[in-house]
């Protein structure tokens, strides 16, 4: 397999973009990405694109992308893998380049949640995800599904709601410094703990804000990367993992096997261990997922994830900063864009010019979990200088 580099990365702000459609957000993200390419990027260099989108806003996604970029000849593959869509799009583009089929490819993710009325968001976006005869009528929305995991996790691990609040406070603190984040304000532990309950143990500050946005990466084979930059970020490992879709079939609710499987594949491919990671973007769709994922990703031993929060290890300035971008929690979560935007943050972190820079970050990990909790994708990136 050929080595694959990220030579450019960019995104739109994540926000309620009522004034912008998906056909606006896609070229905006691409332009931001192209502008980050050190030696410039002629758009005609693109040989193929992988477009991550969970929804089908304004129609057939692959065609919508080609139209929006003004590239009718571009072969576009639409990737939809629930909330793991973004990092799975990276994985698929990597395989195409590593195999030698393509030299330069676009990975772009976008979703437009706020085309739907707030009242109908749960029903419209959640009904894709549930068994039509057995589950959808129960009111098993994403917060409830994840809450079933986290309540069991808290029950068995001895962690408490305060640990969830620590995640919220940390990610809000990080996100306040990210100009592209949707929620750019800090919160206190008291605010997090006293917020209205969504689905226990989650309060409002344990949940992500529904957002629109797009993010893009340009990937290039090692052989051609030098045309675009002398400081590429390398894709060291990718991994995808799955788990049972129905909650009835998940035997251990205190872990996400999809994440364990995805991480194992990504680390194996990279020849790296969890201890090698300097900075991570972890799928904090709900705060408790970040806490549990510390263990599934190998950053902490079983039921000891909370120690990383108690010691401040996962704050910027700590030993393993997690979600320096503010995470989904503060930045927002347009599902198709989320994983790609995580890699945008890591691209900046590993090249040393992130908004909330982690000193000396050399290796970064991005993680998505979705399905809900039935699919995970992990991408491991390494900064230039190797």
């Amino acid at each position, binding site marked *: 397999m050929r080595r694959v580099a990220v030579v450019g990365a960019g995104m739109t702000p994540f926000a309620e973009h009522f004034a912008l459609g998906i056909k606006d957000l896609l070229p905006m993200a691409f332009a931001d990405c192209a502008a980050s390419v050190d030696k410039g990027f002629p758009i005609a260099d693109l040989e193929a694109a992988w477009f991550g989108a969970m929804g089908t806003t304004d129609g057939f996604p692959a065609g919508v992308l080609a139209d929006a970029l003004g590239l009718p000849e571009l072969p576009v593959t639409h990737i939809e893998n629930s909330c793991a869509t973004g990092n799975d799009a990276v994985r698929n583009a990597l395989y195409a380049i590593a195999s030698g089929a393509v030299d330069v490819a676009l990975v772009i993710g976008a979703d437009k949640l706020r085309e739907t009325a707030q*009242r*109908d968001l*749960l*029903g419209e976006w959640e*009904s894709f995800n549930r*068994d*039509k*005869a*057995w*589950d*959808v*009528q*129960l*009111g*098993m*929305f994403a*917060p*409830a599904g994840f*809450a*079933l*995991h986290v*309540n*069991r996790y808290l*029950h068995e691990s001895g962690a408490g709601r305060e640990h969830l609040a620590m995640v919220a406070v940390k990610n809000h603190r990080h996100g306040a410094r990210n100009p592209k984040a949707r929620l750019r304000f800090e919160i206190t532990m008291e605010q997090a703990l006293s917020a*209205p*309950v*969504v*689905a*226990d*143990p989650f309060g409002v500050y344990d949940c992500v804000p529904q957002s629109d946005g797009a993010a893009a990466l340009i990937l290039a084979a090692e052989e051609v990367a030098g045309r675009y930059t002398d400081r590429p970020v390398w894709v060291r490992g990718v991994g995808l993992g799955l788990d049972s879709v*129905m*909650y*009835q*079939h998940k035997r251990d*609710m205190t872990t996400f096997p999809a994440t364990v499987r995805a991480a194992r594949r990504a680390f194996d491919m990279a020849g790296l261990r969890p201890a090698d990671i300097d900075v991570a973007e972890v799928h904090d769709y709900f705060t408790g997922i970040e806490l549990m994922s510390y263990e599934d990703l190998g950053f902490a031993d079983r039921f000891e994830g909370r120690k990383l929060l108690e010691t401040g290890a996962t704050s910027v300035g700590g030993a393993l900063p997690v979600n320096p971008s503010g995470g989904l929690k503060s930045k927002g979560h347009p599902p198709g864009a989320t994983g790609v935007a995580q890699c945008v943050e890591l691209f900046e972190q590993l090249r040393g010019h992130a908004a909330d820079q982690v000193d000396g970050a050399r290796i970064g990990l991005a993680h998505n979990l979705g399905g809900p909790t039935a699919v995970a994708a992990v991408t491991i990136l390494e900064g230039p200088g190797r």
Partner: protein
Amino acid sequence: MAARTGNEVGNEDRRQAVPCVISIGTYLPCWGSTRRRVLGDDEDAVTLAVQAGRSAVEAGEPVERVVLVSRDLPLMDSSNAAVLLAGLGLDPELEVIERLGGAPAALDALSSARPRTLVIGVDTDPAGAAAAYVGDRGGTQIRTAARVTRSLPARTRNAVGAVHDYGDPRLLRERGLVASLSAAWVDTPVAVAGVDEKQAAGLCRGEPPRLPTLGASAGLFALTSMAEWGAPGLLVGVEQANLSGISVTPGPVAVRRVEPSARPLPEGECLPAADLPISLAAYDRAFEAKVRWEAGRHAGSDELDFPPRYRLAADGTLSTGYTLVPLPRTGTVHTTTTVRIPVPGLKTPYSLVLVELDEVGVRALARVTGADPGAVGIGDRGRMVLRRVAVRAGVPDYGYAFEPETEAS
């Protein structure tokens, strides 16, 4: 006056064996007040009927036909029968008679029942259900004593549910209950079903049983009390000016009452929303396992699949040949959450549980019923009960909900 006398009806009676009730089950929702139970948000006449019916034949009494008497059947077109039989765990080949009527109709159904008939009376306001199983012999004997059918439409409800009330309770009493009772030439009753407690007390010998309902189930609730008391005599069921009387000769009856103490229905919020769509193809495929509470088991395997599914062997061959086997109806909460944000189209808050069913390695995802939202915790015990989980595009979607054990139960 066009009344048939007790003697004429008695002649018909002699042509067949006297029905003998050998077991009775009752059910009252836990919601409302002691005097007036109300349906839970996930209950209807069919789920009430299933609760009472299952109690009546809990010991495995053989049932050959079911008569469901009510004026509150959820579906007028389509059928309530398949859900009823599935919920009761009975063979889909059985005859089900959906009989429209109140207290007199239920008593008529009982007094004309052949052996091995389950007669269920259901009311939804006040809510309650009672089911009497007619066995082959023994038990409490039922004989028709009187039947009067007269028209006094003081309250009407048409085919689409529009109600009109004439608004004259004294007229209803004088020209309904009292006039029909006098036309029937019967003895002083032990119990009168279908009218309020005060009216009943004024007409009965001694203190009549206090009945939780006023319609089809009321006469069966009265029969339950007479059977428990060992009180022989006349039981009269009334609905406006219609009346049926049965003479009850008590004998041993197994009575199983599921009548938890009453508490207020939790308040909640329900924002309007677009109708939750239904796939009838998916409904149809899931129906047997979902409403009978059964898992799939493939030949040569001990593993249960819930929901049932096709399986692939290691060599890639397909197995479609599973049989449905009953699942346990008791279990322990493995994890739970309570949704408190307003969810359009659903009454919130509500609790969800993942239940570890006893001793089969199968878990079920369910909503909590019969308890206030948030009252259930990890490790709590309870049972799975048939409920109307949702109404989707006009279709009642039945499935199982988790009812936590209470100290009383």
